């Protein structure tokens, strides 16, 4: 049945997503599915069944008038040559792209984590060594910062290899689309665990200090470093998981909005099943959590009120829900009589 769906996807690939087109596709799939099921029940092999379903499908020209898409069908024929010029990325290339992107995520996330860890140096040094050696701590911090920046730059640099995808000069094959969508779904649970753990670590980073409050030396020796270690690990998880997710989304974004392959976006993942009222709203919502993370870290570092700043998270969550309700566009329901 997958082959039949695939075939239908390809036939409809360049038609607009109008209600009448969607309805036609649904109903044609219904008919083909019925026929396929019956052929299989009659004892035909999968290949035979797919073969006769596809050979008895007919052609798009016939549908064009009924759907009011004559123009598109004509254009599709004319552009058949042009679209071929767009490089079609197969599953292998998609795998390679995801591989490169994921390997990029590690140095970038690690770099940011190192910069945060750098703060430990001056804190520890001022605690252990005499005051006149404070410079060592500052130097240590700069060493961490430098290493972090180098890692981030290294991670960013690889991007040249991904030019094809970034320039949107290619498109995904149907198989590759399904592969990427499946992979993203599989990664999604990992991503959510990473994200939540990351947020919990950041939000709870003040706990060690709070527990050790009564032992002021221990607080400075263990509590303060623990605070930075927890933030560093938390931020690492958040950045790593979101870069990995972007790898899948970037690939899926290559498919034209109008093509049926783009259906994989809404169908597959819950957070993509939403359409926002404007590109601006879409942008705001897509960078929402990253922005909140930044605000949280900045507020916390500036005020050093870690015990209170976690409030930002529940508030942000509520605002997120409200924003989502306001900015979302309900998917058009196909009217049936």
């Amino acid at each position, binding site marked *: 049945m997958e082959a039949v769906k695939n075939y239908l996807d390809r036939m409809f690939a360049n038609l607009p997503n109008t209600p009448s087109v969607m309805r036609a596709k649904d109903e044609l799939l219904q*008919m083909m599915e*019925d026929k396929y099921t019956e052929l299989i029940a009659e004892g035909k092999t999968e290949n035979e069944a797919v073969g006769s379903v596809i050979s008895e499908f007919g052609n798009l020209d016939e549908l064009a008038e009924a759907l009011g898409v004559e123009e598109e069908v004509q254009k599709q024929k004319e552009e058949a040559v042009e679209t071929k010029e767009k490089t079609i990325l197969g599953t292998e290339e998609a795998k390679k792209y995801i591989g490169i992107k994921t390997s990029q995520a590690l140095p970038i996330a690690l770099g940011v984590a190192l910069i945060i860890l750098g703060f430990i140096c001056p804190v520890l040094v001022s605690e252990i060594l005499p005051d006149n050696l404070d410079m060592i701590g500052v130097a240590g911090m700069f060493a961490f910062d430098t290493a972090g920046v180098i890692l981030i730059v290294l991670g960013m640099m690889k991007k040249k290899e991904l030019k094809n995808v970034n320039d949107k000069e290619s498109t995904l094959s149907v198989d590759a689309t399904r592969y990427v969508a499946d992979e993203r779904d599989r990664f999604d649970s990992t991503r959510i665990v990473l994200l939540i753990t990351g947020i919990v670590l950041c939000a709870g980073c003040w706990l060690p200090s709070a527990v050790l409050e009564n032992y002021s030396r221990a607080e400075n020796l263990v509590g303060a470093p623990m605070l930075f270690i927890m933030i560093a690990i938390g931020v690492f998880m958040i950045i790593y998981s979101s870069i990995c997710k972007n790898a899948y989304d970037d690939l899926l974004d290559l498919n034209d909005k109008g093509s049926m392959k783009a259906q994989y976006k809404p169908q597959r993942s819950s957070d993509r099943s939403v359409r926002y009222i404007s590109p601006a709203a879409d942008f705001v919502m897509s960078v929402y959590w990253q922005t909140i993370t930044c605000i949280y870290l900045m507020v916390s570092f500036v005020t050093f009120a870690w015990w209170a700043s976690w409030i930002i998270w529940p508030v942000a969550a509520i605002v997120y829900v409200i924003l989502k309700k306001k900015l979302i566009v309900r998917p058009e329901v196909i009217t049936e009589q």
Partner: protein
Amino acid sequence: MTEISSDIIRGYNDTMILFLLLKGPSYGYEISKQIRNLTDGKYIIKETTLYSAFTRMEKNGYVESFSQISEDTGKRRTYYRITTHGMEYYRQKRDEWVLTKEVIEKFITKENENGSC
């Protein structure tokens, strides 16, 4: 083997579908199966042909569509039912065909009759 010319039959797809709908509401695959069975597999209607016939006839008011959960599979399907307007159109097409057949028949030789075909 002789095959049906799609040009000729095109004008009568609607007639076949309406004929089958006279017996009661039905859905896409059911109709296409009945056409195949009734013609002993000599005519197999393409899915795209069937769907465009449905949309065209719906637009002209010959049929109405409604969505219903199928009894045997439990799946939601689009069913079609014939309207009175559709029945009228069917009768009109039937008379047209009887006349057409009568006329064309005059020019068709039966085998053995004229010897040379």
